[in-house]
């Protein structure tokens, strides 16, 4: 038998489990390095903003958290679609492992947004399109977690949760384009693929922080998915062998 390298092999929990375990320290380390570099540039080097003074520095966590809150949702919806279409075991576990991190990112986006809105707009909160759709995103995360937790059978929980994720995905473009489609207090995006309205050090600080949040999310989701795998696959031989050993 040929021992050909096959990417589909990693779709099996038994092979993905040790791979994820081996990768976690690297993602964590890279996240810390990016985070320190981003904080150095953003908090120590970047100049004062000509309109918002030093208050703009909240951007270095507000934008990465907001991006991650939307991106994690898209990844979950992707796994939900794969799971519903091909009935793969790994997809539901992935979605479930990502949900709490996505919810925390949505919360951080709202929290830092409020801390930014108060000094700049004079209010913690307004019911405008950008803020409201981000709040709905947080509720979608919480709804997904509550729904899957309420259904005992893991397969059925994945299906119900997957449907919720796919219906809710319509909210993502609404968040993203809300500042264009509606009149809103929220400023337009400072960065897009072709041009940026930010100073170079500000931009790099923000991108480094975004990479830090990205690597952090992968590390935490991998940690969580490994536990979910053990739990769900507890009756399989590979988990029994692991548990009989000194798995920590």
């Amino acid at each position: 038998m040929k021992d050909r390298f096959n990417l589909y092999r990693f779709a099996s929990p038994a092979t993905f489990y040790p791979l994820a375990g081996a990768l976690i320290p690297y993602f964590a380390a890279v996240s810390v390095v990016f985070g320190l570099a981003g904080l150095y540039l953003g908090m120590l080097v970047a100049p004062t903003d000509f309109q918002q003074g030093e208050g703009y520095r909240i951007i270095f966590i507000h934008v990465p958290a907001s991006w991650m809150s939307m991106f994690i949702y898209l990844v979950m919806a992707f796994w939900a679609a794969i799971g519903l279409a091909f009935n793969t075991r790994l997809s539901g576990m992935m979605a479930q492992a990502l949900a709490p991190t996505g919810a925390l990112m949505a919360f951080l986006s709202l929290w830092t947004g409020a801390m930014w809105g108060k000094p700049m707009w004079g209010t913690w909160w307004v019911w405008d399109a950008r803020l409201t759709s981000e709040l709905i995103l947080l509720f979608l995360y919480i709804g997904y977690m509550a729904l899957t937790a309420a259904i005992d059978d893991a397969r059925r929980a994945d299906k119900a949760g997957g449907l919720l994720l796919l219906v809710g995905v319509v909210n993502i473009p609404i968040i993203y384009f809300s500042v264009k489609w509606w009149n809103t207090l929220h400023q337009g995006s400072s960065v897009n693929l072709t041009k940026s309205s930010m100073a170079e050090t500000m931009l790099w600080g923000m991108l480094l922080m975004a990479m830090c949040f990205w690597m952090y999310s992968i590390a935490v989701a991998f940690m969580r998915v490994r536990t979910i795998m053990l739990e769900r696959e507890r009756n399989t031989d590979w988990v029994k062998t692991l548990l009989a050993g000194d798995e920590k």
Partner: protein
Amino acid sequence: MIHWNSFSDFLAMGGYGFYVWGSFGVTALIMSIEPIMVARNRKTTIARLKRQLRAESRAENRNNAE
């Protein structure tokens, strides 16, 4: 290179200290507590699954002995 003249300038954040540090503080708190909670949950889950597995194999041994 460094933008600040003194450490107290840095802390004051040009008058926005409360908002800037309120944002960074909560973010740092969440991003340090989440991995700790995930690791703790993993520990208790593994301990429980190991207990269950041992109980199962004991039951099996009894059945075989009978």
